[in-house]
């Protein structure tokens, strides 16, 4: 296959948008769009070896304004993220192309907004100077506003709060851009990196803080995380999977490029917050650690499965940032790999939750239970997903978590290692609550004749689950492109092999670990099935209840308030300070608006004018 450059991909994207907008609600169009996405992914994959060697996919989309040439070309890091985007978009459209489409009225809107989103994201991934980055950034925020607000009602409110946060971020980035422009009067990364030291130290500090605020908002870093959970939870299934998988990672990509390539991690280490309290890197790491812990423990209290997963998306975003900023080859590799891993199992989990709500009509954990016998495929996908999300060995989530833990330990940050582990433990607790309340336990009467979701919805789920397992088994597939990314960014490269990583002090070979697990499970099965006598399956009523005859009017299931002991101990810690901060700001704005409106509606304006004139005259005469 000839090396396709970026124009082909852009062309395909435009075709995508065209088809989605014109014939969005035709039945077969979903499949065509999925094929298109996959085609785009393949086109990047075919020219991927070029990217790996450090070259760049150039595109003819350039223009010069104010002596600045803005050019779009796709590097290896952009390519990696683009692959994830196309994977997520392709599978999401596949999920929505089958039977599900008939159950969702504005399907045309969904397809067109999805196509617009993918195009905007590719534009962002391909930008390689600040101006191009900002233009693409604004487009991405606008288009994701559209896709979040697709369901109206609750999601429209969430979209409105999102767009306000997005504009706050955009203005922060614009301010940073302007300050950079003033110092280096050019927007290209190379120039900026070259002239970076000309800026005064506290000017550098302001720029870095502004950039982190701007990109952090999209990534839902701690103080700005309140918009993401409702925004990603109340949207239809494919949108939730797509957003959960990749949309908030655009902020991470931009931060990754800006902080590591342009500013450089060594500069961040030298920058000190005012009064020499803490250097910038430690401040960011602790911010990331808090972003990991607090949303995860908020997720623990949710009773709606979609909200639980959305809060976990925020938590894992913090985990990725922790990896990227750890200034260690393993850490950055772990951070980027976690982007891919999280994309795969978050999408799988969203699909599983939505297929349950497609069949039972609700995603509320208190009104589900015992569906494993009726929906086995969704159960296996959710099982693979939660093992990935919790980061347990056979799945890929473990590899990236291991890399980040190893980096934190090697860098000598034990307390951060502890914070990361607390986050992971919180995840394990809440994912078990998710799978227990939906699939395990007593089956409800009204769910007796529930069937599995149709193939068009379960195949994408299974593909994602297999991706999670395969990349867990052979992490080398990902590490190869991550190493290439690290070399293009000029940071220390991780030495990898197909099975994992060999550092001097404690290495990981996932091929050995996973094959031993499979062998051990084989031995366990052997012991269990051969040595023991044949087993007999019993109904859910044949259960020990202290001699009481089980009747189905009194539900024999424990699912509400799943961790009472833990909640009693940690509930004083939930003070949602950020919520009060946010509503305080909103009320001040409304108050000032009221005052200024009243100012203009004055009846006797002339009196005040004359008074003003008299005062100014007096002032002039007095001086």
């Amino acid at each position, binding site marked *: 296959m000839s090396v396709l450059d970026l124009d082909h991909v852009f062309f395909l994207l435009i075709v995508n948008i065209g088809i989605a907008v014109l014939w969005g609600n035709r039945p077969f169009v979903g499949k065509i769009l999925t094929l298109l996405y996959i085609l785009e992914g393949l086109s990047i994959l075919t020219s991927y070896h070029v990217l790996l060697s450090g070259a760049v996919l150039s595109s003819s989309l350039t223009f010069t304004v104010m002596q600045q040439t803005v050019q779009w070309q796709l590097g290896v890091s952009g390519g990696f993220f683009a692959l994830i985007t196309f994977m997520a978009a392709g599978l999401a459209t596949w999920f929505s192309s089958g039977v599900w489409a008939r159950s969702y009225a504005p399907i045309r809107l969904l397809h067109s907004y999805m196509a617009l989103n993918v195009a905007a994201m590719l534009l962002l991934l391909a930008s390689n100077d600040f101006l191009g980055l900002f233009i693409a950034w604004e487009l991405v925020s606008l288009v994701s506003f559209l896709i979040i607000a697709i369901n109206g009602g609750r999601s429209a409110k969430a979209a409105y709060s999102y767009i306000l946060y997005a504009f706050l971020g955009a203005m922060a980035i614009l301010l940073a851009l302007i300050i950079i422009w003033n110092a280096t009067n050019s927007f290209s990364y190379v120039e900026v990196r070259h002239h970076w030291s000309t800026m005064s130290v506290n000017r550098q500090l302001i720029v870095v803080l502004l950039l982190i605020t701007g990109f952090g908002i999209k990534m839902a870093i701690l103080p700005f995380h309140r918009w993401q959970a409702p925004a990603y939870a109340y949207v239809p299934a494919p949108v939730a999977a797509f957003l959960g998988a990749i949309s908030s990672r655009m902020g991470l990509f931009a931060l990754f490029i800006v902080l590591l390539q342009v500013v450089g991690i060594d500069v961040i280490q030298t920058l000190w917050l005012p009064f020499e309290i803490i250097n910038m890197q430690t401040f960011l790491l602790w911010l990331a650690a808090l972003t990991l812990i607090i949303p995860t423990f908020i997720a623990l209290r949710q009773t709606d499965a979609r909200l639980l997963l959305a809060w976990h998306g925020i938590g894992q975003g913090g985990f990725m940032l922790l990896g990227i900023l750890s200034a260690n080859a393993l850490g950055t590799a772990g951070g980027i790999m976690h982007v891919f891993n999280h994309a795969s199992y978050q999408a799988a989990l969203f699909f599983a939750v939505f297929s349950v709500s497609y069949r039972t009509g609700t995603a509320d954990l208190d009104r589900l239970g015992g569906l494993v016998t009726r929906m086995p495929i969704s159960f296996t996908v959710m099982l693979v997903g939660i093992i990935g999300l919790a980061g347990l060995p056979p799945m890929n989530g473990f590899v990236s978590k291991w890399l980040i833990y190893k980096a934190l330990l090697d860098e000598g940050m034990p307390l951060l290692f502890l914070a990361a582990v607390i986050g992971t433990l919180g995840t394990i607790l809440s994912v078990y609550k998710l799978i227990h309340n939906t699939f395990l336990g007593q089956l409800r*009467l009204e769910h*007796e004749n529930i069937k599995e979701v149709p193939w068009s919805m379960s195949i994408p789920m299974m593909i994602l689950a297999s991706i999670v397992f395969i990349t867990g088994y052979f992490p080398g597939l990902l590490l190869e492109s991550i190493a290439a990314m690290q070399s293009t960014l000029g940071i220390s490269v991780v030495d990898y092999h197909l099975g994992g990583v060999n550092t001097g002090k404690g290495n990981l070979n996932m091929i050995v670990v996973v094959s031993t697990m499979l062998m051990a499970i084989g031995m366990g099965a052997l012991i269990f099935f051969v040595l023991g006598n044949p087993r*007999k399956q*019993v109904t859910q*009523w*044949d259960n*020990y209840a202290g*001699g009481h*005859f089980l009747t189905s*009017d009194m539900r024999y299931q424990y699912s509400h308030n799943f961790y009472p002991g833990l909640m009693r101990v940690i509930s004083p810690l939930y003070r949602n300070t950020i919520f009060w901060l946010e509503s305080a700001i909103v009320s001040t704005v409304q108050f000032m608006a009221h005052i200024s409106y009243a100012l203009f509606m004055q009846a006797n304006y002339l009196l005040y004018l004359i008074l003003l004139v008299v005062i100014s005259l007096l002032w002039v005469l007095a001086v």
Partner: protein
Amino acid sequence: MKDVIPIQTNNTETIAVSKNSKNIYQQAIDTFSNFCRARSLFVLHYCTGCGAIELPPAMTSRFDMERLGIQPMVTPRQADILLITGYVSIKTLKRVILTYEQMQGPKYVIGICSCTVNGGMYWQSYATAKVLSEYLPVDMYIAGCMPRPEAVLTGLQQLMKKIEKGEANSWENYFKRYDYYLGNQQHLFGDTWHTPTDILEEARHYHLYGAESTGNNTARLIKYTVEHDLTKLDAPLREKDSMTKRGKK
């Protein structure tokens, strides 16, 4: 040791399994497994009556059941021996039968106190079941109006010897002669009496389906099950009243 009165129940004559029908390996495995079964017994003492107070001293430092390999267990699923201690009222008998059926074979029932033998002190009461072995296959009776711990231990040791010799498989009778037991139970609780565990299907699954497993009693039950379609999930809800208030003769 005078007052230890282990007695041999009459209706538990097991259909003697001829030893040489199985091959050598099978026999070796059986003997070894009986050896282990004898050495490790998990006891669920269902304190139906007053005899239960004798068991804690049997477990604590003076008599220490654990040295015989016997451990107390909480749920029927994990238990081998079901100790019925004291009088069994009709209401409790229903729960005892449910617990017995939830236990896993090879399981053994020991009736402690004479109330389980022939009704004991409450022999003429309208509310108590007189002979336990009519409703459950009982392996061992330990008579005495509350036998002392030594009696209980001796009884257990004798049961262990029987298990080791492989003779203590009266639990199979429950499957093989289920009709007899069901008849007695229906006699007390009424024709529509049944428990969540499907004994006949389990008998077929464990190849213990004898000639006497079904008879007219089970026929009545099967007809009732088919009629009320008890396999559906909401069956227990429809059967809610019938289970507890069964018993119209």
